[in-house]
């Protein structure tokens, strides 16, 4: 596939690894924020190719993993209503809530539809006028503009029975929180390519300006990741932290202003609840007042009190403080067929990736 295959060239990869070895003089820890990076890093064995002194740690980068179980419980309570059809992305089905999951509810006969695009929710809404259709909308800034488009179009077309359970997250405030209370040493950040395709570089400036940490917006193929790591090592060695773009074929300094305008039209910043981490200021969204009638949070349903498995370490794993190997549940009672915590559910969750590749 064009723009993918050529970024998997082995000879160039070897050259980059040599270059990294020559440039790196001291032990460092780099965090990859995005789950797609974690998967690529394991899939191509990148950890094993790097000099021992460069350690890669995985961060909170998967919207499925960080959706709080109180929201999963809310979605479950909604789908148990007889007149509700719940629509969501396929990755959300297995995520454990406090006592159930959407997959279990679907097996019990609840009407839960898996959608691929936000716009599919509109079709379901229009096709089922006698039902209340709720789109359980999760995602980072890559996905949020597509949800904003769906909301704007719902309003335009007048689909009165379509509602949104909004659980989207904003990445930069989470990075700020992570860097502000450092329970781990981070020497450089591998920033997510597709979130940045929307955001551009401006929202990340605090990383280098306030925390003096280098950060590189990186693509997802092996050459992208190796070049991203090389650029980080170079910034660290030269002691010149900045926000650099490796993934130039997709990401520009200004990002996608049209997409950001759509988000601004529909949402305003709000505190966000991250599973395993907690509330982070301004890391989520709420509806602007004109769209309030579409907010499924206004539904009067009884939601069970949320609780997590007491031994689950997903919170620490999401912050890069612990690895899945330190969790007592890992591979014993927690595995992809019976996930206890969210990091085992998502294909991009750190525990799932460790399970598959380690």
């Amino acid at each position, binding site marked *: *596939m*064009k*723009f*993918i295959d*050529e*970024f998997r060239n082995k*000879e*160039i990869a*070897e*050259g*980059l690894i*040599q*270059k990294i070895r*020559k440039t790196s003089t001291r032990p460092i820890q780099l965090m990859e924020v*995005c*789950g*797609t990076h974690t*998967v*690529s890093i394991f*899939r191509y064995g990148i950890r094993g190719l790097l000099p021992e002194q460069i350690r890669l740690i995985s961060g909170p*980068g*998967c*919207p*499925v993993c960080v959706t709080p179980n109180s929201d999963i419980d809310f979605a479950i309570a909604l789908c148990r209503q007889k007149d509700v059809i719940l629509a969501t*992305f*396929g*990755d959300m089905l297995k995520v454990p809530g406090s006592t159930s999951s959407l997959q279990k509810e679907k097996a019990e006969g609840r009407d839960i539809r898996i959608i*691929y*695009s*936000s*716009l*599919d929710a509109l079709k379901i809404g229009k096709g089922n006028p006698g039902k209340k259709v709720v789109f359980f909308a*999760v*995602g*980072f800034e*890559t*996905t949020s*503009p*597509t949800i904003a*488009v769906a909301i704007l179009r719902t309003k335009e077309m007048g689909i009165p029975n379509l509602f949104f359970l909004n659980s989207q997250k904003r990445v930069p405030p989470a990075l700020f929180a992570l860097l502000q209370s450092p329970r781990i040493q981070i020497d450089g950040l591998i920033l*997510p*390519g*597709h979130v940045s*395709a*929307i955001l551009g570089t401006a929202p990340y400036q605090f990383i280098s300006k306030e925390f003096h940490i280098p950060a590189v917006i990186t693509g*997802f193929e092996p*050459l992208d990741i190796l*070049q991203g790591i090389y650029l980080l090592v170079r910034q660290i060695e030269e002691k010149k932290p900045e926000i650099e773009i490796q993934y*130039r*074929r*997709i*990401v*520009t300094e200004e990002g*996608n202003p*049209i*997409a950001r305008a*759509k988000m601004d039209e529909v949402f305003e910043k709000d505190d966000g609840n991250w599973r395993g981490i907690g509330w982070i200021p301004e890391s989520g969204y709420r509806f602007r007042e004109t769209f309030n009638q579409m907010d499924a949070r206004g539904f009067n349903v009884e939601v069970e009190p949320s609780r997590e498995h007491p031994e689950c370490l997903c919170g620490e794993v999401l912050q890069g403080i612990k690895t899945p190997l330190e969790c007592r549940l890992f591979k014993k009672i927690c595995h992809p067929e019976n996930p206890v915590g969210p990091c085992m559910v*998502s*294909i*991009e969750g750190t525990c799932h990736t460790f399970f598959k590749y380690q």
Partner: protein
Amino acid sequence: MVRLSNHKRNYDTAPQATGERRRGGGGCSMCLGVPGKVLEIQKTTAKVDVGGFLREISLDLCPDVSVGEYVLIHTGFAIQKVDEKEAEEILDLLKKMAEAI
């Protein structure tokens, strides 16, 4: 007429089984993006070729594209144009770097 590959597939019913899943052996649909070539534009939608598969996508977030250009596709939306020149320049740079070692 652009020739797509020979995969037999019902394009309308299996959108998520196409390029995005083939790309890297899986990944969460909420993070992945794949490049596709624009074949046809109709108002706010486009038909694109994603690694030999035909897909219909929304151009709401990336309206300024032309037939023949590549876009990055995420959950059925073009979210950014692919800059072919940048891609070539980076590959050239990396090749030269690898040769110099």
